[in-house]
């Protein structure tokens, strides 16, 4: 269980979130929706302890988040940042191997088991043929697949993902998201991801947290929270809901 009580966030002197009280239980899949600059990334970074909070508290698995040892935390809670790039040369396979760090001892070296995990994940994420490429040679979509594969390699069931579908083509959106959700479920964790595509949230999420333009928030099960009215309010653009045989579809008006 991840509990936020009266969380206040600031970036520089600019307030981002006023008083967010929010609970995420194991097994849930949360989508975080908001306009550009609404504070999605800041909130997600705070959930992993990467951004100091200006007020309120975050409690995870019965302990205040800041009381966790960083490495112990990283063994069970992973974070996907936007645009992870390596500026110095490293090959894809080695880049992925770095995700095993939380599971190695202080002076640990990567074991054969660590390498086996990397190989298995590369297979599932269709990256095996790129294993020996330099990361600088990869396309934007390939890089994002590598980053998502890093999440799977880390094997931490609590997942905080900042725009996991960035740069991904349709095929990989539809195949990788279920893999991540399945990995989180089978490990007994929960998944929280920021998304720009309302329809992906409708398809894959059980719950949604909406960051509205005026600093207010709206949280709850997808069926209740995602409405034409709430989505129009987020993006300040009229949205229509069409209900078809596959479920609801959100379409911007023209």
């Amino acid at each position, binding site marked *: 269980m991840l509990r936020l009580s009266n969380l206040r966030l600031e970036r520089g002197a600019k307030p981002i979130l006023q008083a967010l009280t929010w609970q995420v239980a194991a097994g849930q899949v949360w989508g975080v929706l908001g306009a550009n600059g609404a504070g999605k990334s800041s909130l997600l970074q705070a959930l992993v302890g990467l951004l100091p909070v200006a007020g309120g508290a975050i409690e995870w698995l019965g302990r205040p988040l800041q009381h966790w*040892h*960083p490495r112990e*935390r990283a063994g069970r809670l992973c974070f996907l940042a936007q645009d*992870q790039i390596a500026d*110095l*040369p490293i090959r894809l396979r080695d880049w992925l191997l770095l995700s095993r*760090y939380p599971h190695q001892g202080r002076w640990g070296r990567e074991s054969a088991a660590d390498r086996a995990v990397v190989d298995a994940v590369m297979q599932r994420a269709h990256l095996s043929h790129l294993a020996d490429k*330099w990361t600088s*040679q990869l396309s934007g979509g390939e890089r994002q697949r590598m980053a998502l594969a890093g999440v799977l390699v*880390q094997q931490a069931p609590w997942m905080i993902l900042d725009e996991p579908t960035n740069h991904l083509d349709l095929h990989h959106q539809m195949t990788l998201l279920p893999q991540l959700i399945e990995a989180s479920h089978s490990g007994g964790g929960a998944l929280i991801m920021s998304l720009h595509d309302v329809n992906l949230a409708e398809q894959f999420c059980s719950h949604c947290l909406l960051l509205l333009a005026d600093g207010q928030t709206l949280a709850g099960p997808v069926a209740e929270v995602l409405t034409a009215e709430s989505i129009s309010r987020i993006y300040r653009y009229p949205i229509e809901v069409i209900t078809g045989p596959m479920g609801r579809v959100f379409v911007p008006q023209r």
Partner: protein
Amino acid sequence: MPIKAPVLFLLLSLALLLAMAWALGAGSIALSWAEIWQGLWQPQSPQGLLIWQLRIPRLLAAACCGGLLALAGALMQLLLRNPLADPAILGVSAGASFVALSALGLGLGAAGLPLYSFAGALAAIALVLLLADVRRGWQAQRVLLTGVVVAAGFGAGISFWLTLSSDLRLHSMLFWLMGDLSDADVPVGPAVGLGFALLCACLLAGACNLMLRGELAAQALGVPVAAVRWWLFLLACGCTALAVSLGGNLGFIGLVAPHSLRLFGVWDQRILLPACCLLGAVLLVLADTAARLLLAPVQIPVGVLTAAFGVPLLLYLLRQQAYGGRDA
């Protein structure tokens, strides 16, 4: 195919031994292997005096200085996440040069030069930290740009001393600026510093690997990024300060050594950091010996030679795939 770590260390150690043997034998008085061997065991013989009084101190200074520069370069590149970062980039060498030249210009004598330049390097580090306002939070971009600006400021000060100085002093100033090991003593202090820095770097190396993925990702994976960053900064600047106090303003070793290893597929900092120390030592011993020989009896500053092989090598590196170039 990446090279295996034990093979790499064996090759580099062998290269260092050979380079040192060459440096002992070659010079205005060439010594054969037998004469070197004799001289080593009979310090009072003519060869012994030559070896123990002149060549060994200079050789050790070159090895130590090369190791320090290579390590400083590798650490700077990690710290600033910039492949073009070198030991001089944060203005540390420029600060050291300015103070050293001021001492020469004021006629304080060359004996205290290592001390002055070390003090200058420390002052430059403090200045960069102060001006980059790191208390409000570390931003690699801001630190980098502040360093570049501080270096430019010291550069103006250096030009000022050069224009004011008499011909006699100008010569020693220019040698110092280009990097020179001809007056080097047995580098006890710098060697201890290098040992300490290398030990710390090896302890940090596991965490440094994660820094390759960016500070946010490293932190998310459980690395205490703030602490690692301070250690990287202090070690990189400390190594630069010691190297500058030994050999003046030597360029390119800090770029060439780590990047050559990366080109051979060495990405793991646990191997790269110690290996680039060895490679830096090999390169500078070779360059310094060549500098003694090329125009003998005239000695050219070794910095001219490191630039001469550093420039083409770096240009070649930039064309490689690993750095975004198209060549295989």
